[in-house]
């Protein structure tokens, strides 16, 4: 591009003239390039020798695994049907409420975290909220909220809403930063107020992505609700945990199949909605 950083390699040019040309390597220093390759290879060899697998234990566990997988062919939806229904209803409620609350809170945070529309101090504040929310895995947050609010779905709702803020706000902010700048300038130039500017220039540009992400987060939250149930935050996860502890794998299989079914359904639904909002 500029003359300063483009060293003309006469040998390469002469070779190209003869019809022989290879793309430039990613790392131009030959020693560094081979050094890195060698280091990667050494690492793989060392890893292979450092992992100590107890094959006897694997063989032992294999029985239980086969037992578990086998029960998928005989899932039992009926025996614990009542518990499954209650857990499922609780999970779906948790998921929905947490997603709505999470998105409602994520939108202002996302607006504040977009470098191209937010003043510097607001930007750093909102990025901090996002970082906090994203640092902690759902399980850790769930443990904290279970300690605060006690066992049950309330802790689950708070956990999922909190996790949703970080996820949605980050991706929304990135989409806003990718928005076309000219319409933003044009609406600003009309003398529109800040809220009008967001409504007319930013919202139309990010709305399809916002809807797509919301649906995606809805099914993440449903899956997560199954996981955080294990640490006491209610829902279908609690039902699943109980059944595993009782070695009642037929019921576990039923629960897992229901989770798979619901996630699949939301996958199809979000694909359809995204096509429709493009």
């Amino acid at each position, binding site marked *: 591009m500029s003359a300063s950083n483009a060293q003309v390699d006469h040998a390469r040019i002469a070779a190209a003239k003869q019809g022989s040309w290879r793309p430039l390597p990613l790392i131009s220093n030959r020693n560094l390039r081979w050094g890195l390759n060698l280091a990667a290879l050494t690492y793989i060899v060392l890893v292979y020798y450092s992992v100590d697998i107890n094959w006897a234990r694997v063989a032992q566990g294999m029985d239980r695994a086969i037992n578990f997988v086998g029960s998928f062919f005989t899932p039992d939806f009926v025996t614990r049907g009542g518990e499954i229904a209650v857990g499922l209803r609780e999970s779906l409620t948790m998921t929905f409420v947490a997603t709505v609350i999470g998105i409602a809170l994520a939108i202002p945070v996302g607006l504040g975290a977009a470098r191209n529309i937010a003043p510097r101090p607001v930007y750093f504040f909102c990025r901090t909220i996002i970082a906090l929310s994203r640092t902690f895995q759902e399980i850790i947050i769930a443990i904290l909220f279970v300690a605060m609010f006690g066992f049950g779905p309330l802790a689950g709702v708070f956990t999922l809403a909190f996790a949703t803020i970080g996820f949605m706000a980050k991706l929304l902010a990135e989409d806003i930063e990718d928005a076309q700048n*000219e319409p933003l300038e044009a609406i600003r130039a*009309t*003398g529109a*107020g800040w809220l*009008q500017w967001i*409504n*007319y220039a930013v919202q139309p540009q990010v709305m399809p992505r916002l809807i797509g992400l919301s649906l995606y987060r809805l099914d993440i939250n449903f899956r997560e609700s199954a996981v955080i149930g294990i640490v006491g935050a209610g829902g279908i996860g609690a039902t699943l945990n109980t059944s595993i502890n009782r070695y009642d794998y037929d019921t576990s299989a039923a629960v897992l199949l229901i989770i798979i079914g619901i996630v699949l359904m939301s996958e199809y639904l979000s694909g359809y909605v995204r096509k429709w909002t493009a």
Partner: protein
Amino acid sequence: MNESYKNNSEVCMLDLKGLTKRYATGDLALDNVDLTVPAGQVLALIGPSGAGKSTLIRCVNRLVEPTSGTIKLDGDDITKVRGNRLRQARRQIGMIFQNYALVERLSVMENVLSGRLAYVGFWRSYFRKFPQSDIAQAFRILERVGLETMIDKRGDALSGGQKQRVGIARALMQNPKLLLVDEPTASLDPKTSRQIMRLICELCTEQNLATIINIHDVALAQQFVHRVVGLRAGAIVYDGPPEGLTPEILTTIYGEEDWTTTHKDSDDEEKSDKKDVEAALLGGHP
């Protein structure tokens, strides 16, 4: 048409004094620019890429903050105004963009009505409940630019020329006193370019608007405007009538080049259409 190229009209709509812009990177984009534009005058701002044309018009409506100097719009100093007063100033300044800058997912009508945003409250604009007079005006302007049947089309469904017409309609909806036009024809074919330039110039004359048009196509500018200002490295190096753009002057503005294919007399507008297109193809975009 060319009798008055300078401010001998009584209403001085825009008055720039010592306008200077130095970017944070240290680049001096505008160097002490003095410029006045009377109402009703169409002024073409020409100059090589990076000469500061875009910066100049963006300083006028404060999309870019000038480093020093003053900007007076119809007698009001708007150099430092903020908040509501800045919005009041901006709504008197229409702007037309190179890449149309429509909000593509909004309909044509919404795009045009967005020119009224500074005149209505947030909730009215949020629910798209614009006053009847605004909607009637939007329709009239769309009729004027020939798009009245497209009101419900989405911005991204239009051709380039149609998008630019919507952009013009949006700017006119502000009932501006001043029109800033940034490379209106850079993304358009030669025929559409002429139509758009003609439309802009007619509208400016009809509504007595002061207009600054940034433009690369010198021949096109010469054909339509009243006055040409040449910018080089952030400073004005030519200010005069379009027919004063001799090859020597063009060399001052752009640097050495063979100008004979672009230069032409401005009175043979009608027959020169074809010649001009050829000139454009042969390198009329310096």
